[in-house]
């Protein structure tokens, strides 16, 4: 009881700062890493919504590599399925645990295209032409989806999705592959016409 009495005698100002302290404390504690219990550094969030420092979570995943689960709710978790949280102006702070592997990058998926699906393929007049083209395109469609590459210059013009951001090496490879496919497609079409 003595403690309660003492508190009620505080000035208004004193009470206010107490409240602010309390508020600050609860705000910062909700951004604590669930492993080191400190404010999360290089923060990542799991699909189940639990916050960790990336170095902490990485170490946990290393210890549980055979069956990785979320340290909080035991949901399935993996390196590819955590999302980094990018705050503002925190990049200058040096992290003492920088030697640990880098945080996985953010995953950007492109928005849905505005116009309809591959409108460029409606240019054919005769039914026979469209039929042949369909068969001819099939193996290349398979290749492209398998390698996760775009279809090349022609397909871009036809309004297909722009491939995700790539390194220059990847872009060179892609250009080379698409030109190979293009040549194969032309040869195939010529062969079909000849037969």
């Amino acid at each position, binding site marked *: 009881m003595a403690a309660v009495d003492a508190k009620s005698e505080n000035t208004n100002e004193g009470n206010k700062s107490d409240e602010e302290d309390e508020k600050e404390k609860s705000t910062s504690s909700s951004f604590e890493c*669930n*492993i*080191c*219990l*400190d404010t999360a550094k290089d923060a990542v969030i799991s699909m189940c919504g*639990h916050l960790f420092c990336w170095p*902490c979570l990485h*170490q*946990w995943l290393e*210890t549980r590599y055979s069956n990785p*689960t*979320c*340290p*909080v709710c*035991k949901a399935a978790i993996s390196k590819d399925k955590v999302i980094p949280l990018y705050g503002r102006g925190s990049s200058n702070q040096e992290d003492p645990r920088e030697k640990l592997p880098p945080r996985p990058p953010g995953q950007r998926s492109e928005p849905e295209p505005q116009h309809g699906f591959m409108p460029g393929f409606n240019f054919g007049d005769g039914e026979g032409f469209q039929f042949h083209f369909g068969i001819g395109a099939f193996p290349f469609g398979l290749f492209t989806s398998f390698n996760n590459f775009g279809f090349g210059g022609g397909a871009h013009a036809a309004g297909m999705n722009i491939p995700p951001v790539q390194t220059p090496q990847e872009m060179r490879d892609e250009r080379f592959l698409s030109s190979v496919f293009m040549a194969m497609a032309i040869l195939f079409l010529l062969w079909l016409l000849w037969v």
Partner: protein
Amino acid sequence: MADIAVQRIKKELKEVIESDEIQRCNIFVELADDDYQDLRGKIAGPSDTPYEGGTFHLEIKIPKSYPFKPPKVKFLTRIWHPNISSATGAICLDILQDEWAASMTLRTVLLSLQALLAAAEPDDPQDEMVARQYRNNYPLFFKTAQYWTYFHAGGENSNSEFTEKVQSLKDMGVSDTRALIALSSCNWEMLQAVEEIFS
């Protein structure tokens, strides 16, 4: 000792000290050495169990890889429980082995142990002798566990029959802890207990 382990233990000690449970005298934890590797815990026996009224002391060893590996916990106070060894105090609890998760803390471990006292799992025993008694003769298990709580953990004694039996074995020159173990494991059959001790 890794930095993260020491930081964690410091925070966890604070968490236990600030928690509601400590104010209700249910759980307690303190350092046993200065390098945050060895701790002592205390849990109160939950009410409506044979452990009610007892205080159970625990030894908590923090591994270097904590919190990625679980702490090693064992009972220092002897206890009659299917999932805790009556001889060594070793604990069979999933969260202290495979089911450990890095977000668990000393507070949650102590509360889980308290919950284990309230809900034994005789099908996954640590002490087969205790588990057998639990399955085959629960009333006797309850009385035995209650007597152990009185004997080792400071609970109340409500069983003069058991006291007499222990006393008569003591009169034969047997130590009281030895007498208690023999009687408990022989379902308090005097002859069997004597046979076990002197065979």
